[in-house]
């Protein structure tokens, strides 16, 4: 793409399993904490072996007006609270946020499962829809989080909600980046959000990809890249970033947290559920080519690594092939669990913090690397290092693969 406009990151906000705010997320990551806990309700479900998750502590939703909040399930509350933090950090005025030049690109894996479940339970109970409230549909529709967050913020530019399961927020950030680079919007509020429901854990458990051997010691799982890993731990939360055309950001003297310099997403059509190493390599190499960067320029890879047996091996082999064993790699799933559609954004936010503070967060619960994942430099203890270029990987069921490449802000 020639003559494309440059794109800065000027704000970020999160509601993570550790609580609300980027500061809260960073403090817990620095301490090496785990947000994973036992879920007693899930122990009551027959056949569900995985009974652990990482869920968001109580969020103060009263900051959102009742007229907007009534249409929101938890995922939209999380994304709105995170978006308010991000727009405040970016110093965006209300006039700027509500200008047609500002759009929103936000996605979840699906609409609210809890709300759909409640609808059908009521229908089964009463054989009637007379007890269903008018707000139900707005919580179950696929673009619920995008529509609700846009309504709460007063967005008048484009709204896009490209759901892609666990890679959703890498795609929303990438598409927002391309939207600004192409000159179609000046500012994009982007990211992902999800609320935990046992359906998500069940989906992975049915496929033998959910962790269940650590139900009695939940903070020992998930274990990305570790020989004793046994699968995903589902989680919830929201991550929001403010992307802005570079000159637009500079003109208003915004603090530029980082610059997005590459994005690639490719499909792997051989199998809807299996990861594909070569496609991951192609994503990483394509994003590096776009940014005109070489392997030796990359300072850190924030891996998707969810702690599934196959997924971690495929990603490790891809990283080894794309950037060899010279680049430090870690996954944050051991701290946060898998925050699904929010994972790409929350982990990119954490990566920007690593760049800012010059310290790499290690992979929690990685004690003995799986020999099948060898060939890469695992970060297993906090590492102080100057970080200028970061690759963020994110993949999803459905053959979705994606890579975002960010660079420390420069004055050129």
């Amino acid at each position, binding site marked *: 793409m020639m003559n494309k406009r440059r794109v800065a990151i000027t704000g970020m906000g999160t509601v993570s399993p550790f609580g609300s705010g980027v500061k809260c997320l960073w403090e817990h990551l620095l301490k090496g904490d785990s947000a994973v806990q036992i879920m007693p309700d899930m122990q009551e479900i027959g056949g569900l072996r995985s009974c652990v998750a990482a869920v968001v502590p109580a969020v103060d939703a009263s900051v959102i007006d*009742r007229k907007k909040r*009534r249409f929101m399930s938890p995922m939209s509350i999380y994304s709105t609270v995170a978006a308010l933090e991000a727009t405040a950090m970016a110093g965006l005025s209300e006039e700027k946020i509500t200008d047609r030049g500002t759009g929103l690109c936000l996605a979840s894996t699906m609409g609210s499962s809890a709300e759909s479940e409640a609808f059908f339970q009521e229908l089964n109970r009463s054989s009637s829809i*007379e007890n269903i409230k008018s*707000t139900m549909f707005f919580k179950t529709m696929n673009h619920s989080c995008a529509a609700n967050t846009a309504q709460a913020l007063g967005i008048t530019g484009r709204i896009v909600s490209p759901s892609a399961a666990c890679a959703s927020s890498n795609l929303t950030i990438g598409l927002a980046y391309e939207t600004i680079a192409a000159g179609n919007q000046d500012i994009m509020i982007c990211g992902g959000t999800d609320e935990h429901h046992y359906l998500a854990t069940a989906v992975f458990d049915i496929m033998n990809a959910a962790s269940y051997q650590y139900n009695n010691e939940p903070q020992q799982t998930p274990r990305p890249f570790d020989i004793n890993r046994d699968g995903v731990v589902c989680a919830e939360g929201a991550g929001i970033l403010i992307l802005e055309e570079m000159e637009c950001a500079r003109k208003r003297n915004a603090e530029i947290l980082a610059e997005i310099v590459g994005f690639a997403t490719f499909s792997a059509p051989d199998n809807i559920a299996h990861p594909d190493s070569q496609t991951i390599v192609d994503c990483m190499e394509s994003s590096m080519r776009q940014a005109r960067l070489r392997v030796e320029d990359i300072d850190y890879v924030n891996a998707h690594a969810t702690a599934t047996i196959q997924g971690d091996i495929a990603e490790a082999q891809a990283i080894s092939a794309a950037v060899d064993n010279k680049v430090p790699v870690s996954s944050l799933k051991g701290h946060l669990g898998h925050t699904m559609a929010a994972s790409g954004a929350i982990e990119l936010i954490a990566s920007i913090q690593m760049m800012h503070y010059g310290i790499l967060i290690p992979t929690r619960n990685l004690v003995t690397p799986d020999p099948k994942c060898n060939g890469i430099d695992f970060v297993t203890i906090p590492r102080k290092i100057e970080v200028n270029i970061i690759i963020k990987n994110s993949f999803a069921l459905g053959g979705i693969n994606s890579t975002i490449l960010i660079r420390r802000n420069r004055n050129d």
Partner: protein
Amino acid sequence: MTETEIINIINDSMVKEFEFDPDMMTPDAHMVKDLGMDSLDFVDLVVVLQDAFGIKLRNEPQVREINTLGDLHNLVLGKKRELDAEGK
């Protein structure tokens, strides 16, 4: 159930559902102009009242004629009396 008890249940249900300030719940409060209710709030109000009293208002044309909270009180009181007379 006395009229006062019925009115209190209506007001309490609305305060809980719509997060109104209890001090606003006066009979002359206009449902739209004072309480800020919109068409979807009226849909949910019908569900809330059905849940509280077992009365069905969804197809009642009088619902569209409610202007004030006092109008709503009178409608529910009338419907409740009808139900009680039918022994339901």
